[in-house]
């Protein structure tokens, strides 16, 4: 009995100190840890995929004509990172931040405003402003910064000149020459 207790005591002394000194020293997170989400308004196209898959509906998109307002109610975010999985532009991603304790609940409500344009047919929003820049950044036939707009995406001589305001029915070329 006494021997066994002595043995236990020796084992306990051998273990050393195991307690983390956490609040006074940083504690690294494991790989693939999903913490607080962050987002980039420059990349977002407001397609609504994240709002569609969010289980607690913490991402809400409001269409306001030329502007889409995206609200993140992080007080009910469960850090499942499904928004990150579904986002085509990777405009939203989980970070390593886990120290999200706060005395004020308004710290947990983030907001993003993206400028959109309205479709003349259906009246819904779509993103126009930097779509061509995106083609460029993905190296879709772009020849350098600013070039994709002129020659990159479209051929050098477009078959139909969309800018000229002529009738779509072409007249025979012979008549033109005369």
């Amino acid at each position, binding site marked *: 009995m006494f021997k066994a207790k002595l043995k236990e005591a020796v084992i306990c002394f051998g273990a050393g100190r195991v307690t983390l000194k956490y609040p006074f020293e940083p504690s690294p997170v494991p790989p693939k840890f999903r913490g607080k989400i962050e987002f980039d308004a420059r990349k977002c196209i407001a397609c609504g995929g994240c709002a569609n898959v969010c289980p607690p509906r913490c991402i809400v*998109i409001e269409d*306001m004509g030329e502007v889409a307002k995206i609200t993140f*109610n992080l007080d009910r975010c469960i850090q499942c990172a499904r928004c990150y999985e579904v986002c085509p532009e990777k405009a939203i991603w989980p970070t390593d931040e886990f120290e999200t304790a706060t005395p004020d609940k308004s710290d947990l409500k*983030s907001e993003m405003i993206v400028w959109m344009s309205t479709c003349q047919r259906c009246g819904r929003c779509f993103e126009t402003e930097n779509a061509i820049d995106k083609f460029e950044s993905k190296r879709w036939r772009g020849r350098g910064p600013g070039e994709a707009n002129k020659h990159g995406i479209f051929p050098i001589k477009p078959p139909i000149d969309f800018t000229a305001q002529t009738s779509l029915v072409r007249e025979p070329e012979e008549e033109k020459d005369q």
Partner: protein
Amino acid sequence: MISDLCKKMLGKSLWLFHTNCGACNGCDIEVIDVLTPYYDVERFGMKLVGSPRHADALVVTGSVSRQVAPALRRLYEATPDPKVVIAVGTCAVGGNIWFDTYNILGGADKVVPVTVYIPGCPPRPEAIIYGAAMALGLVPKKTEAQHEQHVPKGFDLDAYLEKWKDTPAITR
């Protein structure tokens, strides 16, 4: 301000009373985890007590259901002043995926005034320690709301949003 108040009023040791208001047991496991020798929150003088009358702080886990709300209110009234309420987990902070169901009130702050919110599903044990240390005033607040906008130059956003103020929101 709250941390200064807590520092002045509570002195050194924070005795916790842990109450489960309809949690899935995940946050409760993490709260127990914090008390193990590895994380050892007893360094700060915190320990679990068996009665709210002995406690300085209420640790609330779980989205508060309709059945348990009066009991939580009574627990809060039984705790002697000054007291701190720590909401642990996304359920207790905002109601999680049940925030709009009929039998869930959606957060502990609908019933009792909450001092520190610790979101996470479940929060890391370190996050709980961080929240508890913040209630004691040992560490500052780190997180902040993120407000971003991407509009062309010269677009008067405030005036535009003012125009849409009374229009019912179309969400998707």
